[in-house]
């Protein structure tokens, strides 16, 4: 047995990492270039002026704010519905359960374009105007799945006798949910919610069909890329979004690491 990996293995690993991260570096670098049309290398000069231009763009802020709101509401809907469905699937056996489970997780497997067309037809059919809420509904279809998958996996690891023990000791359904079920699934909710938020935040295809004239951030990006001028603005916004999304990712890592202490110590009544 050798302690050191072979040269070929190391080279492949490094090549893989470079392949994954090089585009990010390109974006980082060209956020500072003085040339606004092409990705000429090396950049003719470095400047910070694109940051000022980008942050002054009202349409960028509108798109960002819309995306944040859509993702937040879609995640919230997904957390409530996903947990309820997971609970039902865990607890009850009924006719057609497998069919319902399948149709429930289908939106994440189905090509977005199908979901998009189906939603658009349905929205027109019931006479809704494409708006903020239609985007939320579109996103919720696949956000629910990520929460459901996380929570149902956690439920399966939890012994049902814990719930029975809680009821046996005098807790009603609500108290049992709050003191026994919720602490057990908290990290699953966090993971599922983060994933749902991330999925919603960069969703393009379903949004294109359900958004009408509203522009979420990914759609704003697409529009910007086809414009010949001010290319570095998109790079600046991309860096900004990357930096902002890092915060919840780091936070969730911290939370799941200390999850044991988090919902253990000092129970509150």
């Amino acid at each position: 047995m050798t302690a050191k990996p072979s040269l070929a293995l190391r080279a492949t690993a490094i090549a893989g990492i470079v392949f994954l991260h090089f585009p990010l570096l390109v974006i980082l670098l060209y956020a500072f270039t003085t040339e606004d049309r092409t990705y000429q290398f090396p950049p003719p000069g470095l400047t910070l002026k694109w940051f000022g231009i980008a942050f002054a763009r009202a349409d960028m802020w509108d798109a960002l704010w819309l995306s944040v709101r859509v993702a937040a509401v879609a995640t919230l809907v997904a957390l409530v519905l996903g947990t309820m469905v997971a609970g039902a699937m865990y607890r009850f056996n009924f006719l057609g359960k497998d069919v319902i489970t399948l149709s429930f997780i289908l939106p994440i497997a189905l090509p977005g374009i199908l979901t998009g067309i189906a939603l658009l037809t349905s929205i027109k059919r019931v006479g809704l105007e494409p708006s903020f809420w239609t985007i939320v509904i579109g996103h919720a279809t696949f956000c629910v799945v990520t929460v459901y998958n996380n929570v149902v996996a956690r439920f399966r690891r939890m012994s049902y006798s814990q719930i029975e023990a809680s009821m046996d000791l005098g807790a009603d359904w609500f108290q049992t949910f709050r003191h026994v079920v919720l602490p057990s699934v908290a990290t699953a909710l966090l993971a599922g919610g983060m994933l749902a938020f991330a999925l919603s935040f960069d969703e393009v295809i379903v949004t294109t069909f359900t958004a009408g004239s509203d522009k979420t951030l990914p759609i704003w990006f697409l529009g910007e890329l086809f414009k010949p001028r001010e290319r570095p603005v998109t790079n600046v916004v991309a860096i900004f979004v990357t930096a902002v999304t890092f915060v919840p990712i780091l936070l969730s890592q911290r939370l799941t690491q200390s999850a044991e202490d988090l919902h253990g110590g000092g129970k509150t009544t």
Partner: protein
Amino acid sequence: MQTAVQLNNLSCVFGSVRAVDGVSLEIGTGEFFSMLGPSGSGKTTCLRLIGGFEVPTGGYIVLFGQDAAKLPPYARDVNTVFQDYALFPHMNVLDNVAYALMVRGVARSERYRRAGEMLELVKLAGLEKRRPAQLSGGQRQRVALARALINRPKLLLLDEPLGALDLKLREEMQIELKALQRSLGITFVYVTHDQSEALSMSDRVAVFNYGKIEQLDTPKGLYEYPRTEFVARFVGSANVLEGRLISQGVGQFALRPERVRITVGSEPKANHLVGRLLDVHYLGSQTRYEVEVEGARVTALTTSDATALPIGSTVTLSWDAASLRRLEDTTNSPRQKASV
């Protein structure tokens, strides 16, 4: 004696399975009552019906004079020690034990004080801050016990609580549980598939088979006077002989192996069988002999002595007529009969 539990023609059907099939019994307050049976005999379902975790499909459950068939678990003055202990993994030992007080809104200092007392009762003082995952099986069992007893229930249900412990620990806990039950004066309903456990701890035992009670008696009554072949074989071991007894007629009779005497050679006397010695098992204080008699197998258990009987030799088995127990013809079990 006031009645703690009264089951009247209780049934619970899951699909096509009659898990509990018309069970009627009464348990007095302060009694240590065991439900004994093989797995799938309905004893655990019966316990869960008393606890409120299953809804009966027929019959009545009366707890302390109150109809309880439709009451949810939290509305019954009953607590349960679960087979897998069902401790809350995200809470420490103290919070687990104090849970019942917490959900009732008892102030924090008061509930921790009482939880501390319970932990002393089950000899776990000092482990308050541990998580269930940091405890041994025996310690978890004690936490589950303390948690179930903190409300001072009038009735405690125990579902094979010692099943996961090793033999030595199990015997210690049997003695402790029995002592605890005596000192607290709480009615215990104890489910087990271990007949020696049921015999050693209980005031009375109900033997379950196929969802029905096969026999309900004191431990001594069950062992000395088994009514059916199933009980005779399940509680202790038994030779079941078929034949005619002048005083009791034709039928099946149970004969405990330790009531059988074994001698070398063929020696005609009353109440005897002659056979060939198949096998000898030396068990320390006792020796078990397997004897073939006319194609059937009869077991004798005697106090060990120095004489060794050679395998294959002809032996005579004999017993007192009073040791034979006439068994009822009907039995729930579709079991092969060993006849002699």
